[in-house]
């Protein structure tokens, strides 16, 4: 096999909203199913290489195919294996070829195709996809290079643009705001009120982020001490919360209490005990845990859930503003890959073309008298050489990698080099 005879193909399913739920579930690939799918696709000889990217939002089969109608043949295989209706399966899929297939992978790796724009998890998933394919002996030089390039592009996009920088989730935004007041949190104290789902999540993230001291208080003390034990925090008696406030630099409200649990007077007293050192309140509870007037106390900063969601919205816009720069980087890396791949394709195409002409020439020469053949051979070669000279020169010197690839494709098709 040479790359010249093969095309990059991508058959994918977006598992976001839309499409029937059952189909989404059945087209998702677990790790084992991914291996099995790679095995089956290769077994049928549909592709020479393949890698499957499976995340919660997408199933994508990348391949290097040399046969006809790879889309239908891969879809048929999946439909047969999974017992899915062929029409439904192809109807809900999308298909890309050549540079577009590679571009899609680069976008996925950069987080441009993710629901949370710029999220970084997908980069690891792309890496895993390549590793699984390699272990299953399904990927070789081309897809290996394509996936490595996509990962490199994804990394560049995340370090050189701000597409992954502004946090989108409420806890991480809250945490970032707190560090905007206190700087490093590794010598500060954080108090979480409420050991329910939100409070536990926040406390756990705070411990993981290296906050020096994480205190947890809950109305029923067992839950607080359970949580504290589990994540390595310190439990605080519910009744001791007002007196503990002075020790806390950051207070997170996440109780289900119908009335505010942090009162203006308590914060006022705490601030006096702190000699005015700033305090930061993150109120994640509905209804509020922190009396609104707390925000009026000198050197106290208070954010509610609405504020944090406003910041999330703003951060989404900021990430979106980075899309053009991210795409610039992506095209640069894509160009580099396609240039490499294109060169793989150009040389065999040229040889293929020359071989084809030689066959035609010899067939014609066999029909004329032997003594004249030499003369006609020279004549035919001269015409073929002159005719091909300019197109081939242009093809070789084409600077745009994806256009080069298209032209190679066109030549292969027009001269029927891929019988």
């Amino acid at each position, binding site marked *: 096999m040479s790359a010249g005879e093969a095309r990059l193909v991508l058959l994918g399913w977006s598992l976001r909203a839309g499409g029937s739920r059952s189909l989404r579930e059945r087209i998702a690939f677990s790790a084992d199913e991914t291996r099995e799918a790679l095995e089956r696709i290769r077994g049928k000889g549909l592709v020479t290489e393949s890698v499957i990217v499976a995340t919660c939002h997408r199933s994508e089969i990348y391949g290097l195919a040399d046969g006809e109608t790879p889309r239908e043949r891969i879809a048929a295989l999946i439909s047969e294996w999974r017992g899915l209706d062929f029409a439904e399966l192809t109807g809900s899929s999308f298909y890309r070829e050549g540079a577009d297939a590679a571009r899609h992978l680069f976008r996925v790796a950069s987080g441009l195709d993710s629901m949370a724009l710029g999220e970084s998890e997908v980069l690891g998933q792309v890496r895993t996809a390549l590793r699984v394919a390699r272990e299953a002996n399904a990927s070789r030089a081309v897809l290996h290079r394509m996936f490595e390039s996509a990962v490199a592009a994804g990394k560049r996009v995340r*370090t050189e643009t701000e597409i992954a920088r502004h946090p989108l989730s409420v806890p991480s935004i809250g945490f970032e705001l707190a560090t905007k007041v206190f700087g490093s949190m590794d010598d500060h104290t954080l108090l979480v009120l409420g050991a329910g789902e939100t409070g536990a999540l926040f406390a756990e993230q705070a411990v993981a982020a290296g906050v020096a001291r994480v205190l947890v208080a809950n109305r029923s003390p067992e839950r607080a001490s359970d949580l504290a034990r589990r994540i390595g925090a310190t439990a605080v008696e519910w009744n001791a919360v007002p007196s503990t406030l002075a020790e806390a630099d950051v207070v997170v409200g996440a109780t289900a209490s119908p009335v505010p649990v942090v009162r203006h007077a308590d914060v006022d007293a705490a601030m006096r005990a702190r000699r005015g050192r700033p305090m930061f309140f993150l109120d994640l509870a509905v209804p509020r845990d922190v009396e609104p007037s707390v925000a009026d106390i000198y050197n106290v900063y208070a954010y509610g859930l609405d504020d944090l969601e406003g910041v999330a919205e703003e951060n989404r816009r900021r990430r979106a503003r980075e899309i053009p720069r991210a795409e610039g980087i992506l095209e640069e890396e894509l160009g580099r890959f396609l240039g490499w791949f294109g060169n793989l394709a150009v040389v065999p195409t040229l040889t293929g073309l020359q071989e084809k002409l030689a066959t035609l020439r010899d067939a014609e020469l066999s029909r004329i008298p032997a003594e004249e053949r030499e003369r006609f051979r020279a004549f035919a070669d001269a015409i073929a050489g002159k005719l091909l000279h300019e197109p081939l020169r242009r093809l070789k010197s084409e600077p745009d990698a994806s256009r080069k690839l298209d032209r190679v494709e066109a030549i292969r098709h027009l001269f029927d080099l891929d019988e």
Partner: protein
Amino acid sequence: MGAHVLGWLAVACYCAAEAVAIVSLVRGRGALAHLAPVLVGGGLVLHFVDLMQRAHALGSVPYRTLGGSVSFFGWMLGLAYLFLLIRHRERATGPFLIPFVILATAVGLLLPDAAAAPGEGLHGSVFALHVTLAILAYAAFALSFVLSVLYLVQSRQLRQKRQGLLFARLPPLEVIARLNRTSVTVGLAVLTLSLVLGLFWAEKVWPSLADPKVVWALVTLAVYGFLLWMDRRGWEGPRVAVLSILGFGVVIFSYTVVNLYFSHAHSFR
């Protein structure tokens, strides 16, 4: 040397550093970020040679004249910027601090050195130290002024829940507050020392110590002393920043108005 070629070259370096600092502030991390300190460092070297040439021409310390003292003030401030950068890796203050360096250096170069009439007693190491320390203190207060403005901007953005470009780039409030505290403490200590040296030295040269500039220096000490005191007693935060801005107002007033109009014997001319 009349033309101050090196001095203007230094100004050019500072301007380039400012441009680089602004670009790297807007664009976030970038390869350019390392260029600003190099440019400021180069400017400081050129600037220093220019100050030495001025000193040579005056046959005295370069800050004998008002121009020389302003230029020297700019030099000290540039040094403070480098210190912040190297010691605290604090980049975001650059674009706000360097303009003061540029302004002071350029003004210092533009003010003419009056035909130096060597005042009696305006030489000697005590005098030199007195003036050097005073100018260092002013540079520290100028730094505190810039930090305080940034503190107020950052605090306001946090309070209004509006996060502009600056919000992401400026250091955390407590970091700015800590730098500010250090800066004021240094300024206060150095100004006190300068004042003591000055009084010690003036006692021998002057008939009376009741001098307007001395009085204003005491007012400056009082404002910044009050600032540090209240910083520990619950004013940490925006109020301290406002006090620092007021304090710098007093410094500018005594440097300009008092220096030029009220204090004849005790001024840079």
